């Protein structure tokens, strides 16, 4: 070994970083989070750690949740509750469309670290992130969160439209009788999914549809749901429910051509799954 012996070095990067809070329980996490406000929530860290290192995120405080509990999947009758800190790998054995969606997020290593809460709260700013948003909308999931005004439990789409300064505790939903997931296939494991449609048949036979990559966050497709008896018509109707956009992965034009196809495929799959 020609190299000199290592000297004791102090890693200086991020020395001007945020105040770091590490709660040891959910109660403490809620207390420390308070009303939020310039607080970055560190779940798995797969999105935030590079942003903090590069300085594109400069929060005043970082709330690290790895010791706060908040992880785990519990079942009460036909209802599932999933803690915000549950790693995505732990969802891979659940029913479709969750399992099908999770198996297409990044790779095994990332899925072992990334969390449900992080995915739900991920922003579309530089890539179509948050693949589970459309899935949870289709499942009719409720999101329980805290922040200014206290605890709130609301449908996923309402949470997504108003999620600034909220700390997610868990999501819960009734197990569907069938589920399906249709998405734009990708050349490489780490390519983001440009567009995806989730379809769910609830235990009372209602069909619910959610889309990802079709708006500023996951969206419900009510017009397509109303036309769901005819799969092709539902696909065309879905265009009324979305706000398509250009990004580095797909143009709005391409999304417009693809969305009806994915809606039709998801409904076809749902029919086959029943």
């Amino acid at each position, binding site marked *: 070994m020609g190299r000199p012996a290592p000297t004791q070095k102090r*890693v200086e990067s991020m020395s001007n970083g945020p105040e770091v809070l590490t709660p040891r329980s959910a109660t403490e996490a809620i207390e420390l989070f308070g009303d939020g406000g310039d607080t970055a929530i560190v779940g798995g*860290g797969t999105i935030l750690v590079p942003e903090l290192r590069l300085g594109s995120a400069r929060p005043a405080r970082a709330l690290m949740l790895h010791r706060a509990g908040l992880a785990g999947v519990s079942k009460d009758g036909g209802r599932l509750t999933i803690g915000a800190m549950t790693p995505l790998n732990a969802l891979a054995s659940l029913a479709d469309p969750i399992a099908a969606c999770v198996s297409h997020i990044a790779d095994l290593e990332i899925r072992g670290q990334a969390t449900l809460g992080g995915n739900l709260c991920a922003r579309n700013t530089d890539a179509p992130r948050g693949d589970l948003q459309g899935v949870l909308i289709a499942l009719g999931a409720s999101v329980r969160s805290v922040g200014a005004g206290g605890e709130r439990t609301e449908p996923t789409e309402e949470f997504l439209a108003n999620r600034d300064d909220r700390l997610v505790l868990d999501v819960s939903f009734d197990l569907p009788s069938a589920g399906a997931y249709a998405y734009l296939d990708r050349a490489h494991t780490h390519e983001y999914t440009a567009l995806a449609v989730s379809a769910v048949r609830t235990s009372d036979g209602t069909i619910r549809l959610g889309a990802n990559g079709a708006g500023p966050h996951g969206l419900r497709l009510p017009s397509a749901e109303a036309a769901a008896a005819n799969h092709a018509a539902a696909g065309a109707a879905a265009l009324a429910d979305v706000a398509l956009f250009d990004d580095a992965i797909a143009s709005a034009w391409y999304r417009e051509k693809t969305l009806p196809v994915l809606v039709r495929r998801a409904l076809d799959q749902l029919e086959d799954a029943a």
Partner: protein
Amino acid sequence: MSLNITVNGTSRTVNAEPLTPLLHVLREELDVLSPKAGCQNGGCGTCTVLVDGEPRRSCLIPISAVEGAEIRTVEGLAPPGQLSTLQEAWIHHYAAQCGFCTSGFLMAATAYLENGGSDDHAEIATALGGHVCRCTGYVKILDAISAAARGDSFDLTTTAAGLRTTIKGVDQ
């Protein structure tokens, strides 16, 4: 902050800001240089180490999240001067070209094999799908992991004599 992690069986005390990526603590403070800083965005796999036996991107993990954890890197795959079966397979099958991706591949493949992974190329490709080899030497990498999964033995004195000599040179 000051905290303890175990690196390749040795307890180490490190002094770093809590959100510093594990990768930077390993490389810059502890002089453990096998994990490479590639994309530093989770997209390439060159920084993969084992955290309590699970393969993880060290560029994405805040150091304080692994306080008390057992970290394994290529330096800990075999005693000094020796190679693990997987490393021997790597040499035998010429699975390293430039070698920059090798550390991450070795650690991910080590976890795959320790979890009972098979020699099936499709299964290996699924498990290691997030690792990028920019020399595109994927076939040799799959061959090497397959061979190690089967427990093949390798006579490196005849199959890759030049490489073996180079490695001995580094050891001495």
